[in-house]
């Protein structure tokens, strides 16, 4: 009988992959809103995996930032653009085939690489808020500040891009 964390891992991993698949290649509908919704689910189950990896802070951030902010943005834009066209268009079979092959190949290569690697001796670490905050504000202080600047720049850029006419 496997331990509970292992069971949880399989559950969350399965959910992540299932939702991910439904997000990008839902066989029933190609509505972007559905895709966005499944993306939210994928991210949430990913947060579950983060928790299993003891990265609690990141799990929280993942849910807050992705499932909250980013997804809302996506939904807004989808509503704004009123995208219905893709549903009416035929699937490009060739593109789908080629894409699938490429994806399979990449997946195969990656998994093969992972499997052929020798696992190092495991030393576990707790990714709780306190040590993460410490390292973030000591060792990574400068990148952290630059990141805040990046956000500002992105904000200005977005506002400029979204204006109807540049003066």
């Amino acid at each position, binding site marked *: 009988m496997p331990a509970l964390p292992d069971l949880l891992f399989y559950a969350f991993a399965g959910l992540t992959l299932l939702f991910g698949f439904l997000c990008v290649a839902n066989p029933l509908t190609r509505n972007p809103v559905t895709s966005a919704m499944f993306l939210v689910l994928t991210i949430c189950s990913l947060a579950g995996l983060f928790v299993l990896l003891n990265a609690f802070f990141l799990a929280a951030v993942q849910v807050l930032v992705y499932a909250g902010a980013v997804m809302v943005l996506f939904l807004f834009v989808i509503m704004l653009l009123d995208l219905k066209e893709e549903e009416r268009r035929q699937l490009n079979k060739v*593109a789908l085939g*080629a*894409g699938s092959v*490429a994806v399979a*190949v*990449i997946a195969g*290569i*990656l998994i*093969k*690489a992972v499997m*052929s690697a020798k696992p190092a001796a495991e030393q576990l670490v707790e990714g709780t808020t306190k040590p993460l905050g410490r390292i973030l504000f000591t060792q990574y202080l400068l990148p952290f500040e630059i990141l805040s600047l990046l956000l500002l720049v992105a904000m200005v850029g977005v506002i400029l891009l979204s204006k109807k006419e540049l003066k």
Partner: protein
Amino acid sequence: MDAHAAHHAVTAAAPAFSSRPEDIAWFILLLPLIAAAGITLLVRRSNFLAATFSLAATTTAFILSFVLFLTFGLGDATAAATPFAWLHAGDLAVNLGVTVDKLSTLMLLVVTGVSALVQVYSLGYMHGDRSFPRFFVGLSLFTFSMLGIVLADNLVMMFLFWELVGVSSWLLIGFWYEKESAADAAKKAFLTNRLGDFGFLLGIILIWAAAGTVNFAELSQKLGAHPDLLGNLSSVAGLLVFMGAMGKSAQFPLHVWLPDAMEGPTPVSALIHAATMVAAGVYMLCRVFFLYQVDPAWPVALSFLGSISALDIIAALGGFTALLAALMAIQQNDIKRILAYSTLSQLGYMVMAVGCGGPDAAMYHLTTHAGFKALLFLGAGSVIHACHHEQDIWKMGGLRSVMPKTFLTFALGTAALIGLPPLSGFYSKDSVLLAALENGHPVLFGLGVLIAAMTTFYMVRLVLVAFLGTNRSEAAGHAHESPGSMTWPLILLAVPSVALAWLPLGDYLRHHFFSDHAHHAAAVSDEISVGASLSALFGGLNQILFEPFNHAPLPAVMGTGALLIGAWVAVTLYWKAERDPLPKLLGALARGMKNRFYFDELYEAVFIPLHDLVARFADGFDRWVVSGLVVRGVHGSTELLGRTLRILQSGNLQTYTFLFVAGVALVVLLALK
């Protein structure tokens, strides 16, 4: 520090700029170039200024040449003015340098002197021509190039100016380029010369490869020390170099361009195609005569030639050219063409003299010939000018009375050319005959005597038909004496034609060539100096005048005899003749002579189809292989590749992504291997 460096620079530069008399040669060389450039750039529209520039430059050059002649020509010194490095390529170092010795100073005088007189003459002859300034540019450029040949101290520099002379000759023959015949003649002259120049160039390369130097002095020294320096190629090198002379001096079989070159203005014919340029070949042979003084040696393929030396071949070719040209001259009716063939014949004479081992005789004849042949051409020009560009002697006649100055000078020139003692031509021709006899070429000696008779015949014919008798055409009837600018040069040229040989020129030249060769020491009379030449002029004139008869009576007597026979035949046939009696007497031979023995037709039949064939092949090669296969092939394959790659550029983002992913997969795969 700076002052020190400057001091060094001054001491280093000092020798380069110290004024030595031989550096005058640079001025002589550059003056005509400056004139040509000045006229072209500054006074292209002004007839007066153009002529002034050109004439001033040439006259100054003549005066400087005279100074140089007095300084170096009369002494023993051979000087080389400060050379400029011009080219360094590997072992080959070519300087632009000048040689100042007896040979070059004499030739300088000839070139600048004739050039100056011809330019004065052109003032009258070219009066009213549309491109008057351009004519003087051409003359100046030619003078510059010719002086370059004369002064060159190495083969490469000589070749440079050799080509420049070809170009200026081309410019001047084709001066009236509107006339198709003139343009064709210019092309013919240039291309025929190219053939010879090709051989010349090969010869230069051969000599450089074997001897490692192209400088005349060094080469002569090396050959003197090691006569077998050129190995078994020595005779071949000599013949290749001779090919250059063959082109410029119009020797058989490259003689065909010279008569056609008469399409140019008459002063050009006088300057270039009679007095100077065509003499360049002979001058060059004299300059490199040391090359021929080694024992004959042939490569294996040519070993059947045995002990026949390059000089023997040169002599034979020269003699043959002389005979051929003299025969052709007999049946020409165009006054300029008669003179042109006469020039050919005399050039053959000179080349024969060189071949017989008498470069001094060749130079002697060259010098006197420059004078009287220029005189004859200018006289012919005067006649043509007076007869409104009528050149057929049978349409002239009776010009003696209307053009007394021209007639008198022309007659003097004729007398000099046919070698009437005591005019200059007699002595130089005598020295040529003597050279043939003394150096063991009795056949060529006989040929020379025969040609002398023929020369007399056709020249007397010319004078009788053109100047005596009654006028046979409208144009000749209205003829009048030419203006002073044309007659004065005639008179001035008549002086050397008559009296040049009264100077001890023969000894002078012999001294130059053979002063350090024992086997000719006997021929050298006394040390030549200013004093000696002056005393010779006044005290020994008598002795000089009869010297040929005393010293070697056979050639002198034979020459004079040939002269008398030729003159007698000509007078018998042509005295008061209205029509040419020769075609009736000689039949087919006369027709052959008149048609130049069909050489032009022969060349046209043989070389032109051959040339066309080669040209067509080259054209095909260029069209199909170079342009078709190589150029279009590269361009086509590039385009094909481009078109193929273009298919990939669909503009579809996902295609790009797909390719990108495929690339990444490949890289990862390779990295994992």
